[in-house]
């Protein structure tokens, strides 16, 4: 029960964090010129859509399979969602950075989170391939922590 509650909390935090990623910055109408990969403010980036439709979905499903479900999940389903998650992480990396990334230092922090996310999703995929349940659980929780850390800094409405 404790595990389920904590896992649900992780999912909720993740879902809340992803819900409006890439939201417009406060100075609407202007164009952010500083920072690498900055996007014009006042426009919704593809990051928001990607988070809602792909990243959040696959991560939530994996949390259910690995942390919450008491039944044995079909390996094929686990494999499928794992690949979805990895593809979503790849897609995030290909998108422009959110408008909150203003300075070179912020860019470095954002890239660090992205790198960590990609590495951990690869580690998770390896754990799935090896049917290593403890590794899956630990890695999935690390992925959730990275998501929350990134949202804490690069989202206005999530603390």
């Amino acid at each position, binding site marked *: 029960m404790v595990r389920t509650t904590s896992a649900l909390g992780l999912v909720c935090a993740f879902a809340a964090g992803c819900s409006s990623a890439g939201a417009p910055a406060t100075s609407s109408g202007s164009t952010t010129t500083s920072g690498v990969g900055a996007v014009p403010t006042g426009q919704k980036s593809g990051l928001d859509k990607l988070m809602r439709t792909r990243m959040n979905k696959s991560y939530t499903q994996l949390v259910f399979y690995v942390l919450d479900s008491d039944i044995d999940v079909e390996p094929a389903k686990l494999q499928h969602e794992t690949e979805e998650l990895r593809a979503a992480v790849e897609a995030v990396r290909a998108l422009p950075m959110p408008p909150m990334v203003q*300075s070179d*230092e*912020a860019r470095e*922090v954002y890239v*660090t*989170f992205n790198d960590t996310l990609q590495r951990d999703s690869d580690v998770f995929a390896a754990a799935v391939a090896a049917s290593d349940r403890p590794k899956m659980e630990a890695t999935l929780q690390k992925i959730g922590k990275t998501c929350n*850390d990134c949202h*804490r800094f690069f989202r206005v409405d999530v603390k």
Partner: protein
Amino acid sequence: MSTALRSRITSIALIAACAVVLGPSTAETQPKKPRYATQADLERVEKKLDEQRALVTRLIKLQQQYLQSLVALTGEGTVPAEPPPEPPPITAKPDEPKPVRPAPVVVAPRPPAKPAFGTIVGKVKGGGGEAVVYLDIQAPPVRATAAMKQQNRQFLPRVLVVQKGTQVDFPNMDTVFHNVFSVTPASSFDLGSYRQGESKSVTLSKPGVVTVYCNMHPQMVGHVLVVPSSHYARTGKDGFYKIANVPAGKHKIVAWAPNAKPVSSQVEVLDSEAATVELEVVRRGSQPHTNKDGLPYGSYKD
């Protein structure tokens, strides 16, 4: 009688004489007797064994030298200085198979331990883009130089971060005289007044904030932050920072900004992981200060 006939008769006579002298061969006619090992045989075998033992010892010594050269290359592992003790001599017994000695066990040198490093990322609130984050890790002083110019009656840069042991130069770029001094405890100095084009320096060896002023121009204020090691970062204008290559372990992390008290926190850095630390500093307004004699500034004019 012809010559050929005489020669044939002579040959036949010689063969017959030889047959009579030599007689029948005893080796072919007598049965073979069993042959037992004599003392000489045993000595011969012992001698062969000694030769083989000497050869094995020589091979072991060669292997020893090879391993030592490997260790010297990798820098890890140890090899016993002496070769392994020689096994007891084997007693030779005829018609018994030779006992097989186990091959000497060779322990491969351990691969060098990989150093563990991680990263710290985060944000400092309230620093106004001038905050500095550093780790309280003690390191030997460095031999480096840095400069804080006096230009347009200001210190440039206004905030300078140096590692302890750094020599800080204060070149005067203005057309007027300046007199750089500090009353910071344990780092106080007075460079005296000097003209344009001249430079004076001071070596800062104690970690902490050294506030510098000019004795002639009260508006001139500079901050030199002396940090204990190379593990520090200046924040961006939005407060973000990243410190890479941090040794794994628990560390004290400190954030500082001009006119703010340093704030600190504990952070645990894991190998190849990124730890996140958020800090907040509270900046006060710039405080009035006195001249190097502790007196209010006079009405000095250029």
